[in-house]
């Protein structure tokens, strides 16, 4: 065989790097867990983990932090996945938050996210004593993530200190931690949004149908299209759900996820739309609009 044939495309090189990262964390940590958010990034991450340990099962469970306000399609997708052999799915909800009737309408996205996502995640990690949590975050998502490490160290309170991150060199990841501390591991660090979509297309991996355009009931709120996914949605005066052909670029809690009008109903069309539109990914996710640099603040508090 010629040397020239021994070339990897960028996608296969990213794949190899991610598999290396996942295996490294699984080998070096005592009790890892993969945070599974049901979205496209989690879907790619899960596929990479399956590749890392094939033909064996995943040596760690998946865990979904369920805020109770996710789209119904997401939950159905998750439940189907959980039936697959070799997959152990944990679902965790902050019951204190449920008891307080925590919801995105009465409390505002900031408070709600803190309680149902950030706090819930901390509780779940403490409950199961996980010392390593895989997350699907990418460095290209947001400016503050550009400096995030692949192995990101968290103290015993799950806090991230941007000034106290370990230098990360070569492929030599340092997963050493003391009792009570943990690492967040981001196997998709070097992937871009386009890489993720392309990989899903190349690998033919199913994703939640919400990513594809379809007629859905929506209202316009603060300039954003919000889907009325169930009867808990509180409509304001004058708001009347209308059927519109929309899709979602990012998925989260339905009252906080903005839809975009679209005809893209296949992966290539989604990619085409993305490339031609060139709008920042997080524009559709309301939580970032609260405050300048808000992702950085959330990360310090323990959110991914």
């Amino acid at each position, binding site marked *: 065989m010629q040397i020239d044939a021994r070339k990897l495309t960028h*996608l296969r090189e990213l794949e190899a790097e991610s598999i290396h990262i996942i295996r490294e964390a699984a080998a070096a940590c005592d009790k890892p867990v993969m945070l599974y958010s049901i979205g496209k990034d989690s879907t790619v991450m899960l596929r990479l983990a399956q590749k890392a340990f094939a033909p064996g099962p995943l040596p760690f469970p998946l865990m979904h932090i369920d805020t109770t306000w996710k789209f119904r399609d997401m939950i159905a997708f998750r439940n189907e996945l959980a039936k697959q052999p070799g997959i152990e799915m944990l679902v965790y909800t902050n019951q204190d938050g449920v008891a307080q009737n925590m919801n995105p309408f009465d409390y505002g996205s900031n408070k709600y996210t803190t309680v149902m996502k950030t706090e819930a995640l901390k509780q779940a990690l403490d409950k199961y004593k996980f010392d390593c949590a895989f997350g699907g975050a990418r460095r290209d998502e947001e400016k503050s993530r550009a400096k995030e490490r692949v192995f990101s160290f968290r103290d015993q309170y799950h806090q991230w200190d941007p000034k106290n991150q370990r230098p990360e060199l070569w492929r030599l990841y340092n997963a050493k931690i003391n009792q009570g501390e943990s690492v967040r591991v981001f196997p998709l660090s070097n992937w871009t949004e386009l890489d993720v979509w392309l990989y899903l297309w190349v690998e033919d991996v199913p994703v939640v149908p919400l990513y594809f355009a379809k007629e859905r009931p929506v209202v316009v709120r603060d300039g954003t299209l919000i889907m009325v996914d169930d009867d808990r949605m509180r409509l304001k005066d004058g708001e009347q759900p209308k059927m519109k052909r929309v899709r979602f670029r990012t998925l989260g809690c339905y009252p906080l996820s903005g839809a975009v009008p679209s005809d893209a109903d296949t992966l290539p069309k989604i990619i085409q739309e993305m490339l031609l539109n060139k709008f920042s990914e997080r524009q559709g996710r309301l939580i970032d609009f609260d405050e300048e640099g808000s992702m950085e603040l959330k990360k310090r508090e323990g959110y991914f």
Partner: protein
Amino acid sequence: MTAETELIREDIEAYLAKYQTKELLRFVAVGSVDDGKSTLIGRLLFDTGMVYEDQLAAVRRASSMEGEDIDFALLTDGLKAEREQGITIDVAYRYFATDKRKFIIADTPGHIQYTRNMVTGASTADVALILIDARYGVLQQSRRHAYIASLLGIPHLAVCVNKMDLVDFGQKVFDDITADFNHFASSLRFKDVTFFPVSALKGDNIVTTSAKTPWYEGPTVLDYLETVPIADDRNLHELRFPVQYVIRPNLDYRGFAGTVGSGVIKPGEEVLALPSGKRSTVRAVDTFDGPIDEGFAPQSVTVRLNDEIDLSRGDMLVHPSALPTVTRRFDAHLVWMHERPLDTEKAYLIKHTTQVVRGQIEHIEHRVDMDTLEPAPAEGLELNDVARVRVSCHRALYVDDYADNRETGAFIVIDSLTNNTVAAGMVIGKGGARQGIEDALKELHAGSAIAPKTFVSPTERRERLGQSGATVWLTGLPGSGRWTLAFALERRLFDLGHTATVVDPRDEDLRSMISAAKAATDAGLITICAFPSPKHDDRAQLRSRVGAERVVQVFVNTDPALCRERRPDADQSAFEPPEHFELEVRLHETRIDAAVEQIIALLRTRGQLG
């Protein structure tokens, strides 16, 4: 970009089919706050269409610049804290793609912490892109950046002579800088060095060829990044397969998962396992998508062998004809990356491929003076220091010269207490004849090269305990009050917040007692001994084993008549009064508590109590 946009619009599937065959290139961009690096990166992102409209709008809003120029540097600014300080303090990674390649940029700041950051960004880079301000020429810092890039084994160097607009795009300025730089760079190890006359601010020769430099016939920076050949930079001739994870879903399947560090691994080929030295042949190279004809660097694969040989994480598969050097001791370039300086007394953890071993920086040969880039004598190593050192490990590592193999030549040093990554190392090969299999196996099965060493250095103990270990040795006649004084001293030290103990296995032989005293002193305790040591020889033995500088001998010189009265049955004749002692207390004249204070005062004077 337009032809590409056209294709996206017209035939997205064709575009995707083309896009997915792109190659990945990683480069590190180095420069100081003022030489325009952020602007250059911002320009690359902007001109390749990688900036989203809303980002651009935000940058336009935030741009403090007047007129039509956009402050591209704002596109690459990172954390809030940094924006406030107006500097970039850490390596940031950026991504963009053209129709030829996908790029990962390690964007490293050039200010005071530059070495740590640049080394981090450079460790995985194929190309180093450094900036020189055309007005100032080749400054010391440019040499430093090139030196580090070369040290980290980056094969290709791109030198952007920036701010050409401020020197009227003069050819002579560019040619002089090129000549000056080449003169220096000939001593470094780059495969090639390429120069570009650019203006990051105005966009000249970054993405589009500038009309203002008709005298320049070379490529633009982007052309270069798209075409510089990197596939041959990989080491594909020496197999290094560090086992990362053993996959054993059932009794019939035993696969060794890992990333091919270098070389190629194929079914049917003979491999040798380190450290066992056992041989087998490759049965299959598996992936999730099925077995493949061969695995090559940097693929992540799972290897099955034809024989049941014992292999676990940290072990390595190699070809018997191309062994790495199997060694516990090697020379290396070390870059110190932590505020806490190197402690040569301390054992660290060394992570090399998938192995973590205990090891020690035994000796600093010399430091590299980062101003002259010449060797300089070194007492110790501090943050951002680069040095040549000797490393010794408890177990053998399978290493290659870093220049030949970045995979098996690289290691990191981890502080075993804090778990911080404190240094990055690059193995310096011994040169000469390659080690044979017999020698390799001998090294593997020899005893440890160094005595097992504690992870905790005396300095760390001193900081934790607020004192340094000492043995307070009380000698005197039977009945002189040694034990009473010993326990009173222990109590008083404890009350003062110190950590002290009385060595009290009264019936042991003297040798065991001394061992116990030494162990407690090593642990950093104020160790109080009162057991009988009547002879000069006894005391000499103790001083030599515990270390004279750590022993405080107190002669408890109580009136012999009083001692005899207290212990009429004891034999006083065996006692040889000490000739050398640090303190004398006479317990028939001095109260016990006053004697205790005298001893404590002496310990303080000697610096033993912090």
